[in-house]
């Protein structure tokens, strides 16, 4: 059942993804009185995924506010608050609802610094979960990060584990520019180590998840874990994948991807978002250009097919790129 990762205390080295976000929020609110958090049912209720649980009692309902169901105004209010010196962190419950915030995010937040000639910056964060796998259907499962990556002025992050969720959110909140912070519903309950050093993860740096010499696999978000499983299977048959977790989609770590490609000469890009015109297209296009001479095979992409996310488990399971698909694509690439 969704909505129910029961979150306990969050002061431990091993945290759930949702707790890690919670800790980042709490620390930022502690450190900087201009940070405030708002969104639908984020205060007492702690958010539909429990991410903001406990913050209201700790910081008061002034700094952590429940909002009406008015996404467009909330997002523009974040812009106005940021222009007035605060650091708003807005939660949009599902990434599909970002459709209601596009003027604020794209026309206002992304452009204010530039179009005002650099007088100001817009230090706001929009946190929102994407992704499927819980049979939530076509309007509650989309991965729309490619839209935001296309807009000059925005940064787009997508952590795949608790440490990155923690560290990148802290970086996002302290960053002077607007950040779209993409979480993943399926990861909220995931546990992982959150070491001290995680507090200072730089935006724009990929993480090497696995070392290999035979092909590079670039991915991000929950798909990192599917890729890891696939890489194990591949290793069994003697194919060693070099796996990179992008973590940051805009800007993305071109040099890390290129370095991996220089080593393996084969590149597969995998994500849960729709393949056509998705994030992988940019990476493939760019690497096909600057990495052209390195390529021993065409760059391959694996993303969701060109259909809405279906409800039925029998369909959604096939819809998402699975470990099998990745293994097959990798084998094909190395053939």
């Amino acid at each position, binding site marked *: 059942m969704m909505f129910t990762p029961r979150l306990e205390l969050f002061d431990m080295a091993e945290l759930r993804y949702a707790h890690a976000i919670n800790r980042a929020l709490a620390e930022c609110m502690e450190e900087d009185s201009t940070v405030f958090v708002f969104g639908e049912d984020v205060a007492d209720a702690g958010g539909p995924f429990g991410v903001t649980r406990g913050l209201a009692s700790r910081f008061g309902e002034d700094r952590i506010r429940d909002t009406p169901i*008015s996404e467009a105004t909330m997002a523009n209010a974040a812009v106005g608050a940021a222009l007035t010196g605060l650091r708003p962190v807005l939660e949009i419950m599902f990434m599909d609802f970002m459709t209601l915030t596009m003027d604020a995010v794209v026309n206002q937040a992304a452009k204010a610094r530039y179009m005002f000639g650099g007088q100001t910056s817009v230090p706001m964060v929009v946190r929102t979960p994407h992704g499927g796998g819980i049979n*939530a259907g076509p*309007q509650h499962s989309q991965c729309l990060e490619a839209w935001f990556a296309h807009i000059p002025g925005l940064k787009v992050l997508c952590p795949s584990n608790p440490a990155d969720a923690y560290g990148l959110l802290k970086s996002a909140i302290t960053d002077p520019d607007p950040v779209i912070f993409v979480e993943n519903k399926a990861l909220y309950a995931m546990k992982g180590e959150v070491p001290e050093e995680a507090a200072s993860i730089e935006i724009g740096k990929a993480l090497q998840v696995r070392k290999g010499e035979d092909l590079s696999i670039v991915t991000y978000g929950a798909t990192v874990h599917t890729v890891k499983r696939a890489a194990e299977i591949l290793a069994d048959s003697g194919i060693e994948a070099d796996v990179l977790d992008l973590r940051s989609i805009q800007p993305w770590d071109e040099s890390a991807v290129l370095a991996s490609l220089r080593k393996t000469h084969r590149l597969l890009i995998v994500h849960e978002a729709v393949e056509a015109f998705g994030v992988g297209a940019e990476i493939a296009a760019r690497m096909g250009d600057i990495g052209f001479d390195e390529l021993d095979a065409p760059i391959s992409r694996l993303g969701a097919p060109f259909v809405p996310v*279906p*409800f039925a488990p*029998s369909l959604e399971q096939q819809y998402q790129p699975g470990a099998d698909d990745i293994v097959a694509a990798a084998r094909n690439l190395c053939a």
Partner: protein
Amino acid sequence: MSHQMNDELLDMYRQMVTIRMVELRLSRLFADGEVPGFIHLSLGQEAVAAGAGSVLRSDDTVASTHRGHGHALSKGIAIDDFFAELMAREEGICRGRGGSMHVANLSLGMLGANAIVGASIPIALGSALAHQLRKTDSVAVAFFGDGAMAEGVFHESLNLAALWQLPLLFLCENNGWAEFSPTHKQFIAPLDKLAAAFDIPHAKADGNDVMAVQSAVAKCVDGIRAGGGPQVLECMTHRWRGHYEGDPQKYRPSEELEGLEDHDPIPRFEAALVEKGIEANVLESIRADVDAAIEAAVEKARAGNSPEWERARNDVYTQVGAV
């Protein structure tokens, strides 16, 4: 009281118990993992859907919400088609692609449940525009919850409907809650005052009294059909369950939860029917009928097929000649 009137009331009764029993069944199926995804039950609110549905014609259109089972059933979606959909079957009304939040039957004028709060309103408005442009006397109904009043499209639609005098009924199911928060913490304008600002007639009905709903909706719809422009109807009701099935609604004061059965629309309607001379065993046999139909629908859905990926994979655009 004429036989015909009795038959109509009994139809409405059947509708209301259908919604109730379907949802109770869904609740169990959900707990047993036979209904995937997540579902929002309208238990306690059945009188609104049943009352409204009893008034509408098949050429009238409705657009619904995330809590749309009742609206779908009362607009005529067959329970076989319904269960098959929620149980993710190829035989479902949406071939298992939509599920609970997207149940629709276009041939019945049911334009779909909707997972985006507020979207039902401008979609119904577009449907009303279609009725107007075609010069029919069909009516469009926008179901929406009280929480949806905070969405801008609601207000844009009030304005548009009034400006163009569209055949649109704004039907608010006011259950006092939006997810985990009481709506009064989210939206401040009383709906009557708001409607008045747009010069749209507003009426309020006891949403736990199906006959009250029926007559209120009938009055609105008659006026709209006669060309009188849009109307707002606010049905006051109660959400019994959590926001979604599985939500233990700890955020709700226990006194509030305890008193809920007092508002149950079903015994209330039963009492009224008995008073009208209908015998209890008639009602009982309706319930038995419905129960049997539901069990049959569930069995049929169980025996149905999971949608096949190969068919669903390449179906994004209309195949020429297929629509």
